[in-house]
């Protein structure tokens, strides 16, 4: 996959990605919704393919995941879950070259902001469907 370089809004955090998985994914769970302000989209990349510099704050959003942001401007950087092989779920907005990466999947679709629908024929899973396949999840926030 194509390499890409990115940075946060203020420029203090830089990211050098040598390869990514070539698709984006959306999560509408209540925690992702609250953390992003509405729409969580990520582009997954392997741990070894991501180099980061700058003032990164890592917030443990649960026992099994962290969410990172720039200490200066608050730009969101990534989500990482222990049960997802340690890959980075990077925020595409950090990378100019991520604009055209296609959306491949949408999970927790039944929890999406009520006025928000993403058209297309990508894969979709409800909260129940997704959690049935991911037994380590204890359920969505209210």
């Amino acid at each position: 996959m194509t390499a890409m370089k990115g940075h946060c809004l203020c420029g203090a955090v830089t990211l050098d990605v040598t390869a990514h998985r070539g698709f984006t994914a959306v999560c509408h769970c209540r925690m992702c919704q609250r953390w992003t302000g509405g729409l969580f989209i990520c582009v997954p990349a392997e741990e070894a393919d991501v180099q980061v510099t700058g003032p990164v704050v890592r917030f443990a959003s649960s026992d099994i995941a962290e969410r990172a942001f720039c200490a200066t401007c608050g730009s969101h950087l990534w989500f990482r879950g222990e049960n997802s092989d340690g890959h980075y779920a990077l925020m595409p907005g950090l990378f100019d070259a991520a604009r055209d990466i296609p959306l491949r999947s949408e999970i927790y679709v039944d929890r999406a902001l009520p006025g928000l629908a993403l058209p297309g024929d990508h894969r979709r899973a409800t909260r129940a469907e997704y959690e049935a396949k991911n037994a380590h999840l204890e359920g969505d926030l209210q």
Partner: protein
Amino acid sequence: VRFTASDVPRHMHACHCSICRRISGSAAMCVNVPAAGMAVTGEVRTYASSDWASRSFCGICGTPLWYRLNREGADYSLAAGVLDDLTGLVLDQEIYVDTKPAGYAFAGDHPRLTEAEFMATLGLPEGPA
């Protein structure tokens, strides 16, 4: 961070400008509320994203809170997802659609304004803020 807001409308708009995308990761979903009804507690950090606007977030978890123009009494443009009650929120406008990434889109027949069209409504120079 906790806050209460009054006169919260049941509609939100989506902004696809380069600053919103860089700071939120994708589009910013916003609900505008009047400043007079806002009461906030907690560790709020504010970043001046331009000479005429700023963006605030939680210093602990990074959750985006709001966008404001640097005008006395300016509305708080709240990040929709931080509201406890999301019932009935409707997407009624998209702005900066000319800079929206090609990889995703939002359904609906609401108005879609380009950067030039939106900035004309504010009386501000063009460019993300």
